[in-house]
């Protein structure tokens, strides 16, 4: 499955990120029920309490809402919320890491931007 158990990120954070990815890909739609903690536990071979902790991260951000006795559902505009927060936190940090590494290697700005363009081109071609 998609979790990297060796990675140093706590498992529940990885669960939250996996759910976010599912939402971003459109695999779960607004007002649809999401996986229960028990389904996630079985899918990823983890304790259901850990899975619940991952679900709760998204609930605390308002990405999920609870229907009593029915489970967790996807809120409206959740995709935009995730995109916004990922862009301002995750992507920003990744870019910082790239820039730091480039500086360490003495790679100039133009070269770095070219590398990014090339990477994007390659990905685009893969998708074709």
């Amino acid at each position: 499955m998609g979790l990297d158990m060796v990675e140093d990120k706590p498992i529940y954070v990885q669960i939250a990120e996996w759910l976010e990815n599912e939402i971003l890909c459109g695999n779960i739609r607004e007002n649809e029920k999401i996986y229960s903690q028990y389904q996630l536990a079985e899918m990823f071979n983890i304790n259901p309490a850990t899975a619940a902790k991952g679900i709760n991260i998204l609930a605390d951000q308002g990405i999920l809402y609870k229907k009593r006795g029915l489970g967790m559902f996807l809120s409206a505009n959740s995709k935009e919320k995730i995109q916004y927060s990922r862009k301002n936190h995750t992507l920003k940090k990744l870019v910082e890491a790239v820039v730091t590494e480039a500086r360490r290697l003495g790679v100039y700005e133009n070269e770095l931007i070219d590398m990014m363009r090339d990477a994007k081109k390659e990905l685009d071609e893969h998708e074709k």
Partner: protein
Amino acid sequence: MDVISCKGLTKNFGRVKAINDLSFTIEQNRITGLIGPNGAGKTTLLKIIAGFMRASSGQVAVFSENPFNSLKVSSNMIFIDENMKFPQSLSLAEILLSASAFYENWDMELAKGLFDYFSLNPSRQHHHLSKGMKSTFNMIIGLASQCPLTIFDEPTAGMDAGVRKDFYRALLRDYLQNPRNIIFSSHLLNEVEDILEDILLLREGEKRLHLPVSDLKEFAVALRGKKEIIFDLTAGQEIYYQKSMGQDYYYIVIRRDSAGEVLQKGGAAGVEILPVKADELCVYLTNRNRGGIDHVFDRN
């Protein structure tokens, strides 16, 4: 409701304190991992909880009763370890059949399913099985009994890696179907940490940590950098582990929640900040010496 609670629990063997002033509670329907090095008191604690042994002092309550001589506890509990003895005249199939008479919630379908999956031979006798096969059979008994309190003491002894993996998966799936109280002792934390909810870490009969496994990964943080900078930064902090790396570099593990300022200053001073894996942290926390095995070789 607390299923198990201990208060000031102590068990002496002669002059040795196997369990020393131990207090904790375990809430309902959790999988708790009892972790600690050899001689930490894991088996002693489990035997007291199971009612096999009387504590020297302090209190222990299981299902709100003192487990020693308690019918309630013994009829709702199963204790699985590698020393389980079964009547020598019975075959494995006959053992399963008689176990079903002992345990109210016995799940024969599960027992047979696991029995076939692990290719055990129903006509064989328990004392003729290899160590790993014995452990596998005992595990089947432990799961199929569906006891409200299921205790596994080092259940994977002798199992090969594949069987261990299957066992953890079986334990989790069975728990998802029928949530109950499971305590599981092991020193292979990295194999089991994902299926545990809580971890109780023992060292020399004392509680070192008792917390959700998911918090364990964030409990400590490691710093790596120049010796003077590192020791300057961590002055006054409790150091769980330290190791010299090459000439004047050091690797130091400290508690995360008291380290906010240290991390900020360290980051600015070019110190590397690294997460600490749960199983490594457990080893650091239960080492008698904070330098680990290197300490033996690094005497000056």
